[in-house]
């Protein structure tokens, strides 16, 4: 029983160290995403600031802002809406990256069951990003 609680203790601390590194990476990701969004936002306000807004009626976004390659193409062309959407996409990717890192961390601990569980979660996230 004592040995069991000691291994659990060890498991908890290594979990926590990995989590701390992941936590800092996530914060960096959020800051980068927010900065890209802000840059796109400034550009957007400069170019479209005096146009009227209309969010009353729903119309789907144009197809280039709906897919990962389209967003990258628009952002690299320095289109303001594309840049903002790239920031938002990076933000959506932060939890995905986190889950991917966790697979790696569980693999280091030789915890096969949790490698499988975490891979299922990653699969669901990727499925969602491909459009559900």
């Amino acid at each position, binding site marked *: 029983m004592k040995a069991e609680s000691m291994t*659990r*203790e060890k498991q*908890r601390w290594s979990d*926590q160290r990995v*989590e*701390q590194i*992941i*936590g800092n990476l*996530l*914060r960096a990701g*959020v800051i980068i*995403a*927010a900065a890209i*969004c*802000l840059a796109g*936002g400034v550009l*957007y*306000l400069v170019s*479209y*600031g*005096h*146009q*009227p*807004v209309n*969010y*009353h*009626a*729903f119309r*789907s*976004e*144009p197809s280039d*802002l*709906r897919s990962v390659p389209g967003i990258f193409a628009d952002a690299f062309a320095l289109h303001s*809406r*594309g840049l*903002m*959407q790239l920031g*938002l*996409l990076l*933000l*959506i990717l*932060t*939890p*995905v990256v*986190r*889950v991917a890192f966790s697979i790696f961390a569980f693999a280091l601990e030789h*915890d096969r*069951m*949790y490698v499988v*569980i*975490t891979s*299922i*979660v990653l699969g*669901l*996230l990727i499925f*969602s*990003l*491909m*459009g*559900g």
Partner: protein
Amino acid sequence: MHVIHFTTLVWMGSFVAGFLGSLTGLGGGVVIVPLLTLGFGVDIRYAVGASLVSVIATSSGAAAAYVKEGYSNIRIGMFLEIATSIGALFGAFLATIVSTQAIGVVFGAVLLYSAYQSVRTMRESPCGEGDPRDPIATRLKMHGTYPTAQGLKTYCVQAVPTGFGLMFGAGTLSGLLGIGSGAVKVIAMDQAMRIPFKVSTTTSNFMIGVTAAASAGVYLSRGYIDPGLAMPVMLGVLAGSMLGARYLMVARTRVLRAIFAAVIAALAIEMIYNSLAMGRP
């Protein structure tokens, strides 16, 4: 209204929502959708898309701070995340076929429940040393320890299937309404699985971001995330919640919680009324 006015006002509203949300622990996401639909006349699907992105921002941004406290249990979170992710995909799918009025009514009901949940005093009854342990939880290595004033304390986990089922519901609501649905996650983890408060709140923060990402992907590819709207919402909520976390220690949260809960309840009633009477949330 012109883009520049709209963007500035939405940013300010989101900032206040993020600030109060993090100060009271209720999350900024719950008031973003009513703010946008009732205050700015935004279509609820755009509002939900923008809210989801801001939920991810606060969850990922706060992860490092939560880990430092040493309470979160990544195994419990990851296992339950299977249920919430499937629920979130289902909820995002529902959002594309259900009428906006129906979404408005469900949203109002969940808001009312969150307001009630935030003011009632919860009794904590964590599963301890002597309690029977759920064999599934033992197999999944979910039992753990957490730091207390008296040193590390052991806790155990119960009713994994019930918790898993409730988490599917939490995920569905999150995908349909664009909120973190912390209120449902709390019932699942505190009440059903009998996990200590501090462990469940920090674990829930991790789960909220992953759940929101599962439905945000669908929203993005269906064209429900508009950058011009989501940009000021996300930046406002993020800045507000960062400031809120800094004032957490000095604020008198009990009074604030009560006020914020009253605001949420009022918004809930207005959303339900608008959806039923005018056919527009």
